């Protein structure tokens, strides 16, 4: 059967968005089906994100816009799946798109209807904490920006229909059936927040001042129900004492769910920190069992929360809450270490609710014929983390396991990576490419500016005197044409603009309407269709900056509109056409590191027909996985590894260099060149390639603690695993003590190695299986069996593995007396305990190979974090990329992670790489910086500020009349330049031109600000 070059992505949260963009950028047609009226998912509701406190909407909104205007992504809002038939590569899918009661294609998102609508409906985006009109948009930055009518609330009064100038509203519009033919399906339906109503002991729904964490998130948001003011529901007073209760609906074997929701410890800390930042008088307390800060740089965040913000952590699970009737304050009881019961009163209690399967998961699974796991999430396997039980259907994000945003983004890219492998032969078959006329050369023409001013229904025209502004604009220099439109963005106006450009021979166009952040690309495309360079366009925002913010001052709003237009005309006169350069791509990949991560990435690329150079420093492939036998879930690692290595070695497209060392790397995205020495005879090779994947992994910490290496009874977890799986030594043992966090979460390594808790539990279970009578004690600080790993923690406790906690400040002590090893642990509740085990197993963490990483980072010109792991471009939304284009990151080189996570990230890295490798040519942006070489003094200030390695100093020969000399000159690579302009402002000689935001252009605007008298 023929493979179809289109993909259906179900779910428009950050996972679905990332998968869609990755696939659309690599040559597939994407249908993105979203069940609500806007993409964005839960992330759009968040105020900030951990561990960087990044503003969620600031980083998400550009992705929403990118998705919305991607020519190969069709967003199907308000839709659900009905039926699927077919096989991998060729599925037929039926969807139902529920009616919005208005025509999506006509609605301009102007919002007049919502302003006039007399009926209030509940604002679900604000978690029911506020109301909005019965006709509304999901949230201000919604994509697509279309309104919809709440059918339960609408009384059909007809006001909106009467007022809508676009004639979009049609109460009678029916649901629509959509039939698609796609090659693959990606499931990204996310999760639901746990509803704590059934847990009567917490009084949610009964006590006004008990709220959920997602409600608190909206309260924190500057665009939330109280504009970021933290007030409690009962009386609108600022709650000074806030209690956060962790694990509500998670890690609960009696009520709720018995897995860990993975994100609550961190988001609770974030909410506490942000609350404190908003209002210093707030005193947050977090009640928690463990603090599961297992991700990259998470522990540092917790330490800051404690030390800098004074967040109090109490290691207790609260069993119930009582409301004090008069004050509506809340009383909680907990036990101190000495068995004393304490009663404490809080003004507000936030329940940190966990993740549970999307309520539609079951129905969807039946329709798609895929299996769910025991918890109702999508079933996946360790070695195929983004594949569902049905071939051709992939999964990513929280629908697979509870996870945070970066891991969701990683999996979304991984799903795209796997779709790539399935559909590579159908790539570029269904994507559309616009045929454009040749660009007109207007460079020696005097400016002829045309101005189009938008009424936006009455959004602008109701306040700003638009016809008056048009008349004024006509008097400005170089303006040869001006008009006003009801909606400048409507399809018929685009035709009109094109006609007016041709008729009046316009060579600069200005649109005065709304924000360029959403509409600039549309108008640029319009003028390009009649041959004008797209950079000969300027936009003025007289809606968001005039009519909407000066609603009661129409004259001043009109005057301001004139000022803004005058400034824009001044700039437009200075605009010049900008050229986008094309760069050829070498469609070969270089992968550094031959562990599971590097091999997975290599195999993904080679399966799509790309040549791969795989560099391994040792004499065999496999990396750290060579020392592992089984996963926590009992998957056979050695067998998997054997097959993986066989597949690599049998693949004609993969060239493996063992015992290899990289000597130099030069070039840039699409065109790298690397020199490598390899083999026993130290041969040398020069390799040309278009992308680089860093998969150098991490290494096991070699402990200095606990007399390691001096006593055979003190071994590491890895040594113990080998003994367990290859010998029967454990049969002869009576008692084992495992010590967690050896070489992790301390001053030298202030991070969690993520895998050690699971490794310890895995080995403890195996030891119990071999020798049921063996006594095992695990000494720990926090047990971090996140997600479904919690099951094995429970299992270990059921099998009588004993867990004893210790504090960081009082680590267990080792004493050897009369050849007897003794370990003394100080438990905060129980005091000192002495154990005399036969064997001490140290759970040692993963550390970065410092020297190797520093050398490689220098050659790649990419950064490392404080712990010497590689530092990605953006912690939240770009976890696989480096800031330098064309270089990607996966596996433990990024931060410690398990096999499943490493395999996912490798496929994600391959997906990013394929965007480049599959492109015939790369097109640079016109918005770049350029050095005027003559005036450059070669000081290098620009090189220092550029975060994208786009600038380098090049030695040039300068010839004068009677002599010549060599000088350094700055050179900016347009392929790497992002056009931020920082170098231009930093240059002491003002000799860097920032295209489109140049000195003349900005100065022209400034000079035009005041009316010349």
């Amino acid at each position, binding site marked *: 059967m023929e493979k179809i070059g289109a993909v259906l992505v179900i779910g428009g949260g950050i996972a679905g968005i990332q998968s869609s963009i990755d696939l659309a950028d690599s040559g597939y047609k994407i249908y993105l089906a979203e069940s609500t009226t806007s993409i964005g998912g839960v992330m759009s509701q968040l105020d900030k994100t951990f561990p960087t406190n990044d*503003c969620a909407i600031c980083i998400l909104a550009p992705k929403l816009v990118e998705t919305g205007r991607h020519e190969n992504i069709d967003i199907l809002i308000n839709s659900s799946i009905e039926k699927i038939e077919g096989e991998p590569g060729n599925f037929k899918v039926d969807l139902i798109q529920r009616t919005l009661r208005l025509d999506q294609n006509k609605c301009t998102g102007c919002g007049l209807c919502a302003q006039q609508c007399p009926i209030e409906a509940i604002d679900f985006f604000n978690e029911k904490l506020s109301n909005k009109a019965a006709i509304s948009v999901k949230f201000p930055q919604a994509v697509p920006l279309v309104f919809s009518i709440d059918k339960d609330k609408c009384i059909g009064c007809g006001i909106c229909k009467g007022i809508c100038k676009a004639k979009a509203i049609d109460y009678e519009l029916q649901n629509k059936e959509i039939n698609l033919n796609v090659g693959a399906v990606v499931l990204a339906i996310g999760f639901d927040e746990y509803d704590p109503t059934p847990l009567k002991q917490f009084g949610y729904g009964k006590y006004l001042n008990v709220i959920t964490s997602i409600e608190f998130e909206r309260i924190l948001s500057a665009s939330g129900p109280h504009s970021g003011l933290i007030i409690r529901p009962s009386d609108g007073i600022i709650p000074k004492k806030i209690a956060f209760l962790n694990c509500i609906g998670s890690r609960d074997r009696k009520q709720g769910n018995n897995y860990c929701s993975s994100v609550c410890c961190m988001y609770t800390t974030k909410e506490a920190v942000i609350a404190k930042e908003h209002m210093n008088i707030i005193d947050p307390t977090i009640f928690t069992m463990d603090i599961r800060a297992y991700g990259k740089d998470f522990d540092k965040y917790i330490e800051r929360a404690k030390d800098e913000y004074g967040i109090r952590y109490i290691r207790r699970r609260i069993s119930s809450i009582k409301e004090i009737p008069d004050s509506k304050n809340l009383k909680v009881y907990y036990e101190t270490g000495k068995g004393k019961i304490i009663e404490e009163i809080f003004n507000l209690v936030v329940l940190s609710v966990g993740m549970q399967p999307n309520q539609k998961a079951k129905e969807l699974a039946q329709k798609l014929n895929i299996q769910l796991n025991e918890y109702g999430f999508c079933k996946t396997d360790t070695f195929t983390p983004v594949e569902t039980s049905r071939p051709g259907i992939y999964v990513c994000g929280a629908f697979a396991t509870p996870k945070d945003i970066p891991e969701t983004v990683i999996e979304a890219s991984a799903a795209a990576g796997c779709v790539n492998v399935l559909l590579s032969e159908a790539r570029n078959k269904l994507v559309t490419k616009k045929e454009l006329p040749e660009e007109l050369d207007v460079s020696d023409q005097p400016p002829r500016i045309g101005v189009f001013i938008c009424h936006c229904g009455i959004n602008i025209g109701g306040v700003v005197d638009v016809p008056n502004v048009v008349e004024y604009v006509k008097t400005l220099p170089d303006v040869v044409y001006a008009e006003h439109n009801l909606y400048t963005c409507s399809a018929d106006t685009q035709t009109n603009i094109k006609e007016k450009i041709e008729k009046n021979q316009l060579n600069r166009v200005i649109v005065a309407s709304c924000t360029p952040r959403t509409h600039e690309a549309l108008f640029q495309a319009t003028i390009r269709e009649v041959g004008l360079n797209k950079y000969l366009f300027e936009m003025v925002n007289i809606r968001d900056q005039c009519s909407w913010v000066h609603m009661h001052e129409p004259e001043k709003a009109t005057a301001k509109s004139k000022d803004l237009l005058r400034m824009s005309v001044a700039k437009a006169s200075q605009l010049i056409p900008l050229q986008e350069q094309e760069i050829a791509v070498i469609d070969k990949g270089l992968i550094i590191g031959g562990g599971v991560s590097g091999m997975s990435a290599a195999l993904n690329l080679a399966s799509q027909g790309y040549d791969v150079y795989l560099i391994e420093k040792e004499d065999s492939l496999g990396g750290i996985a060579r020392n592992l036998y089984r996963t926590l879930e009992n998957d056979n690692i050695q067998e998997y590894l054997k097959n993986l290595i066989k597949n690599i070695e049998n693949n004609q497209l993969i060239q493996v260099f063992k015992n290899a060392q990289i000597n130099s790397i030069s070039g840039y995205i699409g065109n790298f060149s690397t020199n490598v020495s390899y083999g026993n005879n130290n041969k040398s090779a020069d390799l040309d390639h278009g992308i680089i994947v860093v998969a150098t992994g991490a290494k096991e910490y070699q402990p200095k603690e606990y007399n390691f290496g001096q006593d055979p009874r003190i071994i590491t977890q890895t040594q113990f695993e080998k003994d367990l799986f290859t010998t029967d030594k454990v049969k002869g043992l009576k008692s084992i003590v495992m010590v967690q966090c050896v070489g992790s979460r301390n001053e030298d390594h202030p991070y969690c190695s993520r895998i050690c808790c699971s490794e310890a539990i895995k080995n403890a279970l195996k030891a119990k299986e071999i020798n049921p009578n063996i006594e095992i004690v695990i000494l720990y600080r926090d047990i971090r069996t996140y997600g479904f790993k919690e099951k094995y923690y429970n299992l270990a406790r059921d099998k009588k593995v004993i867990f004893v906690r210790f504090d960081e400040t009082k680590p267990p002590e080792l004493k050897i007396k009369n050849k007897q090893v003794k370990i003394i642990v100080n438990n905060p509740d129980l005091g000192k305990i002495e154990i005399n085990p036969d064997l001490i197993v140290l759970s040692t963490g993963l550390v970065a190979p410092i020297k190797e990483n520093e050398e490689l980072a220098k050659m790649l010109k990419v950064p490392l974090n404080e712990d010497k792991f590689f530092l990605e471009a953006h912690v939240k939304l770009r976890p696989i990329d480096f800031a330098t284009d064309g270089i990607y990151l996966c596996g433990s080189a990024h931060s410690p992670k398990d096999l499943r996570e490493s395999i996912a990230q490798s496929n994600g890295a391959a997906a990013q790489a394929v965007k480049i490798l599959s492109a015939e040519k790369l097109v640079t942006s016109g918005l770049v910086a350029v050095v005027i070489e003559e005036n450059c003094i070669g000081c290098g200030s620009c090189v220092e500020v550029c975060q994208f390695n786009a600038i380098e100093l090049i030695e040039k020969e300068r010839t004068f009349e009677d002599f010549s000399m060599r000088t350094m000159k700055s050179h900016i690579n347009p392929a790497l330049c992002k056009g931020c302009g*920082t170098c231009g402002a930093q240059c002491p000689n003002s000799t860097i031109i920032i295209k489109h935001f140049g000195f003349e252009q900005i100065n022209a605007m400034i000079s035009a600000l005041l009316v010349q008298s």
Partner: protein
Amino acid sequence: MSKSKKKLSKKDFHPNILCFCCNWCSYAGADLAGVSRFQYPPTIRIVRVMCSGRVDPAFILEAFKDGIDGVIVTGCHIGDCHYLKGNEFARDRFERFQEVLKIFNLDKRFRLEWVSASEGKRFAEVITEFTNKIKKLGPLFAT
């Protein structure tokens, strides 16, 4: 001082303020102020740049030379920069530049502020507050 202004009493003084916004955060914050209908004085004229790191102190001098009463540069909060560190370079640059402005007694007429894309209200507040401050200072070319 070619572009002279009439002498105004402080009461009916309507300041002209130049406002630089970065494309990713503060411009989006200004948009959200619009969408949310947060009202602020019609005193600012926004110039959009891709990053606050683009703003050259020369632009600010140019504005003051022309008689613009106040200049405010806005960008992403530290750590949020779309270009990673552009706002940090802007911050360092303008900290030094303030010293220059002090010499000319212009330092109070210049401000650097961070506004995120979700801080529509804050954008309106910052502009209102800065406008009031410039009103108190009076016109740049008062005499």
